[in-house]
């Protein structure tokens, strides 16, 4: 039962991160999105945990939300310094991280006390979600171009270019989720 709940929560978060899965079509940009998500997720969770529960809920929510937006701004500035070309190609997409449902959920985790207790756990899960995002981006680049490179300027999608487009992201993610269900069912049956 708990396992099922965990799976549903994981799937709900993956769906909440759908825009990032769509934009991550190479190792370079998936690294940028993954690192930014991890940073924003950690900052938001820490701010939500830091404030005392006695403070009015809506103020905590507002402060946490603004912190998420500031964290995105800081992350974007760092990416701009490291790789201006990468920043120019992804900056508008990077900003939506502070508006994604998983971040909003963390910001509003003051609603219930038990949600607050989960915040710590969510912070750890942020690392797993970022890793999944980077893996998905790398897989898309590999299928689309037949190779994986770290530099954005040398990527050429010549093998199966549709996978690098939004169409490919939707279909690949749908097939992966169905595949995971299929294999987990086989494993479950094997255990029984």
């Amino acid at each position, binding site marked *: 039962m708990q396992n099922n709940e965990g799976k549903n929560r994981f799937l709900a978060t993956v769906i909440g991160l*759908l825009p990032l899965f769509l934009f991550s079509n190479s190792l370079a940009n998936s690294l940028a999105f993954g690192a930014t998500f991890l940073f924003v997720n950690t900052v938001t969770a820490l701010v939500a945990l830091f404030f005392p529960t006695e403070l009015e809920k809506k103020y905590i929510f507002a402060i946490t939300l603004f912190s998420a937006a500031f964290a995105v701004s800081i992350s974007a500035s760092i990416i701009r310094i490291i790789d201006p070309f990468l920043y120019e190609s992804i900056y508008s997409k990077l900003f*939506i991280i502070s508006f994604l*449902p998983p971040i909003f959920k963390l910001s509003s985790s003051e609603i219930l006390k038990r949600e607050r207790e989960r915040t710590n756990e969510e912070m750890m899960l942020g690392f797993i979600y970022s890793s999944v995002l980077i893996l998905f981006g790398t897989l898309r680049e590999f299928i689309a171009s037949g190779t994986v490179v770290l530099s954005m300027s040398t990527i050429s999608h010549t093998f199966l270019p549709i996978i690098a487009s*939004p*169409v490919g992201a*939707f279909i690949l*993610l749908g097939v992966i989720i169905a595949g995971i269900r299929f294999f987990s069912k086989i494993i479950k049956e094997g255990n029984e």
Partner: protein
Amino acid sequence: MSALGIAFYIVFSGNIFIQWALPVDRKRTASSSFINFIVFLGTTVVSSVLYGVINKYCLVPLKLETISPVIFIAIIYGIKSLLDLISKEDKKEVFEFPYDKRVLFLVLVLYVIALTSYSSCNSILELFWASICCSIAYVVSNDFLNAIIERLELEEVPENFRGWPIRLISAGLMALAFSGTQACFF
């Protein structure tokens, strides 16, 4: 770009539903009633125009584009305060910001509409028009996908594909149709 050009570009090439992967509104928040749609449209236009103007005349000249998410949250809070002020006579808030999950999802949609409108327009009038086109295109595409999913429920979809996988694959096929139109004209 002419008004017709902006509308055509935003509906087919820059459709936020496809380009930004927002097919998660299963409850049709924006189109559940006519009043909801009008409120959604009004909020979209105000937030997009404000965001575009602040970005163009303040943030970009000062090279402060990186703080644009903070500005957008401030705009949304401003609109919410205004709506609360208008509905003060009823003594109830228009929406409870931190608690209504559907509203939280709409903030993401509003931000994406503001970004898309800003990136494809130069004047305030164009921003106004683009945000209207963008929101109508989003609502129509979302309802279109929901209709496809409802129709698919009558079919024998393999068990592993039921739910999100078939929804994502349907969205992908819709995106393919939009990409085809984009390839023909742009």
